[in-house]
């Protein structure tokens, strides 16, 4: 039994293949008019939380067949492949080194403390030295946590008008320099996550070539969301995004960095937060947004480039992981379908996006 996708554009950023073809995929027999559609290797998500089966459905509808972030569930027929992330420090508290060697021996493919930035540079250097022997990348969110402390939005005119404590973008740039220096000192392969500021990107541009193995990613929220949204959402908890979203200049810098390859990937940072932890005042809310289903559409809207959007969700994250992932699945994408994010009160409610993943398919060998 096979379905034929007729005249579909095959866009494979891994091999460089870009051509129109008829492709046979598993499924009930019949022809599908593939004109206007794009077939690319399934997306790989470098950061996605899984709380329930609803998150598997979100991953699949967003075109992700492989997700990194929640401790490993065995590969299954249904739902995405879940790869495990090991802790860098115990409970990600930044004080003591976690049993990362054991975690990697038991299947973890990367090490990191989620969004938390380490306060102590001494502990960070030790952690990177220890991890350097394990041959997996260490994920760090670049920041000076002391400078960032207490901030709820980007420092500058928006913070002044919103009346919220600001996060200086210099905190991110300092984090980038620190991570680069300590990566070089330790010989550890480092991946920087959730870049959000023009200053952070400028620092990354400066150090990337001279730091062996350094890669970096941003998120769909940081590519598209504006600080003003906090006021539009009446300071409700679901408006909280951490690290904060930047201003127009920051977003322009992120997009340029995706286009020129300074940023390697986009990771969804998808997270389902219980309603009661966000139906509250902004300052006490737990940050987190269900982003996976809309990730491609947001990246495509932000960059305006199909090729870049596909690259940063396929080849980019694979190069960060530096290992084989489940390659059975491909994403069939309608790049020009416009739609609006619904799904209850979230930071993305009402957001219009450009492009939708039609389904994940398995081409016949």
């Amino acid at each position, binding site marked *: 039994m096979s379905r034929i996708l007729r005249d579909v554009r095959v866009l494979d950023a891994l091999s460089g293949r870009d051509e129109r073809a008829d492709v046979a995929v598993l499924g009930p027999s019949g022809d599908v008019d593939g004109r206007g559609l794009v077939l690319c290797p399934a997306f790989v998500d470098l950061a996605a939380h899984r709380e329930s089966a609803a998150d598997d459905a979100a991953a699949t509808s967003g075109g992700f067949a492989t997700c990194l972030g929640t401790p490993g569930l065995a590969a299954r027929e249904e739902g995405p492949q879940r790869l495990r992330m090991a802790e860098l420090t115990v409970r990600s508290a930044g004080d003591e080194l976690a049993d990362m060697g054991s975690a990697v021996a038991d299947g973890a493919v990367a090490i990191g403390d989620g969004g938390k930035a380490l306060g102590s540079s001494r502990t960070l250097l030790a952690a990177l030295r220890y991890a350097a022997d394990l041959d997996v990348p260490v994920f760090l969110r670049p920041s000076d946590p002391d400078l960032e402390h207490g901030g*709820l939005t980007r*420092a*500058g*005119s*928006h*913070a*002044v*008008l*919103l*009346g*919220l*404590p600001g996060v200086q973008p210099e905190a991110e740039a300092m984090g980038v320099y620190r991570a680069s220096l300590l990566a070089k000192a330790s010989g550890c392969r480092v991946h920087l996550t959730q870049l959000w500021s023009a200053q952070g990107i400028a620092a990354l541009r400066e150090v990337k070539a001279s730091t062996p193995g350094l890669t970096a990613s941003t998120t769909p929220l940081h590519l598209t969301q504006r600080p003003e949204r*906090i*006021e*539009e*959402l*009446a*300071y*409700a908890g679901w408006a909280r995004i951490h690290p904060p979203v930047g201003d127009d200049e920051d977003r322009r810098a992120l997009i340029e960095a995706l286009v020129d390859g300074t940023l390697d990937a986009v990771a969804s940072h998808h997270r389902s937060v219980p309603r*009661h932890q966000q*139906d*509250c*005042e*902004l*300052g*006490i809310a737990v940050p987190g947004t269900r982003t996976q289903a809309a990730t491609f559409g947001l990246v495509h809207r932000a960059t305006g480039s199909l090729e870049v959007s596909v690259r940063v969700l396929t080849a980019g994250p694979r190069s960060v992981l530096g290992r084989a992932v489940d390659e059975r699945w491909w994403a069939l994408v309608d790049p020009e379908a416009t739609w609006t994010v619904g799904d209850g009160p979230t930071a993305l409610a009402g957001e219009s996006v450009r492009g939708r993943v039609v389904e994940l398919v398995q081409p016949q060998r």
Partner: protein
Amino acid sequence: MARDSRHLVGLSTLSGEAIASILDDASRLRDRVRENGPSTDLAGRVVALMFMEPSTRTRSSFTTAAFKLGAQVLPFDAASSSTTKGESLLDTARTVVAAGADAIVIRHKQVGGAHFLASRLSVPVINAGDGIHEHPTQGLLDALTLRDALGTLEGKTVAIVGDIRHSRVARSNCFALPKLGARVLLAGPGTLCPPELAALGVEVRRNIDDVLDEADAIMLLRIQRERIGGALLPSIDEYRRFYGLDVERLQRRPELVVLHPAPMNRGVEVAHEVADSHQSHVFRQMENGVYVRMAVYMRALEQEVV
């Protein structure tokens, strides 16, 4: 965002006309009270005072304002309330509404707390201070006091000196005064008055001597003792020298109108003699606070001031 005009969450979203109309109402109510005493405009109505942070002045002012209009006050003590048992702010507010409150006055340490409630409740919400963000009734009473003292705000220059960064009073003034035609100058040390405050549509200067000569009125902000000796301010002596209004400086400007949102640190931001001088309007500010809050209640409960 709350667009319902019964709410008063901040002055940033109010037009100059709306602000002037509240000031006119407050001034009419003042005449009325002085002539006839309290009224019964809001008899049978209940306002809940949800003060989730300590407050003496603002709370008693809102209480008196309610009494002078015949409204009942539903007191709310944060220390003994269910919020200390983990109830969310929204549920607490809904309980207060279910208990019969026709309006809610909220002071909360979280920025946007009042905005959040206003977007979710069926009754009008009045912001009595949300973190460092806004304190709209204070902004209104300052504007009324300035208008009384200067005749008009059109073309006048108002300087605000001190810890602007952590001041919801300064922020509400910066939103309101330019809409009434005034120019606002800010001054303070870079740690407490950083240049990006110019985003408020005001001018940022360095110290009190940079603003004193141009100002028709000056508002001194309270320096919180806990800010001194840390990473923000070196010492009280240094603060007094560059930012304090002392007798010598006041003598340079015999017409200057002096305001302070109180409580004052006598001898720090304002000299004892200055606080008690005829140029000081501090206690008029407090009196005006009652009339402004009466006007805000009337607006919230859709009663015309006649």
